[in-house]
């Protein structure tokens, strides 16, 4: 009985987290298309519902009623597993994101490592999908994506080390609390920029969307997918983008902290501030998609390995020396 009650209360909490995440993923897709359209002086989706807000819902319904086609020469088990893996990994990482000092599903000691680990597992959905399709374009897309995500993970890892040097803990709530007086975006601004660009590459967003470059690879690893399975890839991708925005706001923009500790601001609940920060970062993501042309693949690799990695490593040395010299190291 005791276990059952634990399971029920946890399920309730998980649903309370995941349903808003899924709804906001649908909304964010609409927002993305809208911003993209406005930059290009188009209207964007504006027909279904007020301002076209229900467009994603209509799309989801369309995908649900479409036939799921599994290619006869594909590796069926892995082909079906791939979108499930993508979706699951995109959703489980939300467990550790703190919405306020107490509102967090799992307040674990190694929260940031968990986030990093899960986001580095995200590449498997893509590789599995690309390989199991047994087709040339998906395979090329998967290979590109694997190399790209592994490269940019390295610099994200080093940037996380930068933040950890200033915090002295791997717990996400500790990271937020350490920014009470000063958000890390100010002292670590170059790292924030590199994190943002690496997050674009990590989530296969334009200008780094070579794995699904429609001009050369049809749709990359998603080419053979249809119906609900395609929609799951799509949902997973946008949930990952939101997660990267959440990670950026926790690491650099003070998470759920309010920008100024004054009356009208500090009564607003932390969850609202976090959501606003995520939205701000997402609007930047969408703008980048609209205004920047796609990178060439060798330039992408050069940017990751020859520019971002040395720069962030140098910044680790700088941060460590600065903290050590001024005796600011967070030793407890």
């Amino acid at each position, binding site marked *: 009985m005791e276990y059952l009650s634990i399971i029920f209360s946890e399920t309730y909490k998980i649903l309370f987290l995941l349903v808003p995440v899924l709804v906001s993923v649908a909304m964010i897709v609409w927002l993305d298309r809208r911003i993209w359209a406005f930059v290009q002086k188009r209207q964007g989706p504006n027909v279904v519902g007020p301002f076209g807000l229900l467009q994603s819902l209509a799309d989801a319904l369309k995908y649900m009623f479409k036939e799921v086609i599994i290619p006869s020469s594909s590796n069926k088990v892995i082909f079906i597993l791939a979108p499930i893996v993508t979706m699951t990994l995109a959703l489980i990482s939300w467990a550790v994101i703190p919405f306020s000092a107490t509102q967090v599903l799992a307040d674990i000691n190694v929260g940031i490592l968990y986030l990093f680990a899960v986001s580095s*597992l995200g590449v498997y959905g893509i590789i599995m999908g690309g390989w199991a399709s047994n087709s040339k374009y998906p395979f090329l897309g998967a290979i590109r994506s694997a190399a790209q995500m592994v490269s940019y993970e390295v610099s994200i890892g080093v940037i996380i080390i930068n933040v950890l040097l200033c915090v002295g803990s791997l717990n996400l709530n500790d990271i937020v609390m350490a920014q009470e007086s000063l958000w890390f975006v100010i002292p670590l601004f170059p790292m924030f920029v590199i994190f943002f660009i690496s997050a674009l590459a990590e989530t296969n967003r334009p200008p780094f969307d070579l794995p699904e470059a429609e001009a050369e690879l049809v749709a990359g690893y998603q080419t053979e997918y249809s119906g609900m399975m395609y929609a799951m890839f799509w949902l997973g991708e946008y949930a990952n983008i939101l997660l990267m925005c959440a990670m950026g706001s926790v690491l650099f923009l003070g998470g759920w902290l309010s920008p100024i500790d004054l009356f009208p601001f500090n009564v607003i609940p932390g969850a609202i501030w976090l959501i606003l920060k995520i939205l701000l970062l997402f609007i930047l993501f969408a703008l980048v998609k609209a205004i920047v042309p796609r990178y060439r693949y060798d330039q992408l690799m050069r940017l990751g390995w020859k520019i971002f990695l040395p720069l962030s490593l140098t910044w680790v040395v700088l941060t460590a020396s600065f903290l050590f010299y001024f005796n600011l190291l967070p030793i407890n």
Partner: protein
Amino acid sequence: MLAHAIFFYIFSLIAIVSAIMVTVSKNTVHSVFFLILDFISISCLFIMIGAEFLGMIMLIIYVGAVAVLFLFVVMMLNVAQQKNQWFSARESSKHIPVGLIISTIIFFELIIVIGGWKYKPDLVSSMSLNIDSSISNTHAIGYVLYTDYIHIFQLSGMILLVAMIGAIVLTFRQRSGVKRQSYFSQISRERSDGVELIDVPSNKGVKSDD
């Protein structure tokens, strides 16, 4: 405790079954996927005994990086074909003695470890390190790694660096006749380098260089 035991048996069962499947499965890519499943369940076991740092690092390094490269290589090479050749050819018995020797060594090592653990339980408590149990194990590893064992730690880093440089040197080849993009010369190009204004005489035209 019951839930703990149930989860332990689930994860260890998955780990053992997938480890067997790594060696048994015909398709090499499937083997790598089972290897990944094995890594994941072992990192779950690490987390269950409270070594959350080790578990996460296992996930990040082995699953997130090493296994991706494994998969990369296995997918690119057509290993399935090669494997069939090994199985059908007569010389396949060459690999069996080496494999037997290695597996015997590993087997005896495991016996030593388990025997030591079973018959000398004070082995764990007799270690020279005094680890403060009040701090999280990330801090504990940090305190040990960067103080008492800093030289060994640095040395292992050096060995990895040498291995990395060695791999690069071994596979590096300078091909001739390849046009390389030089970003510096591209960016430092001036207008005067590329554009030339010529007064074209009437009815003569201009002869271009290339």
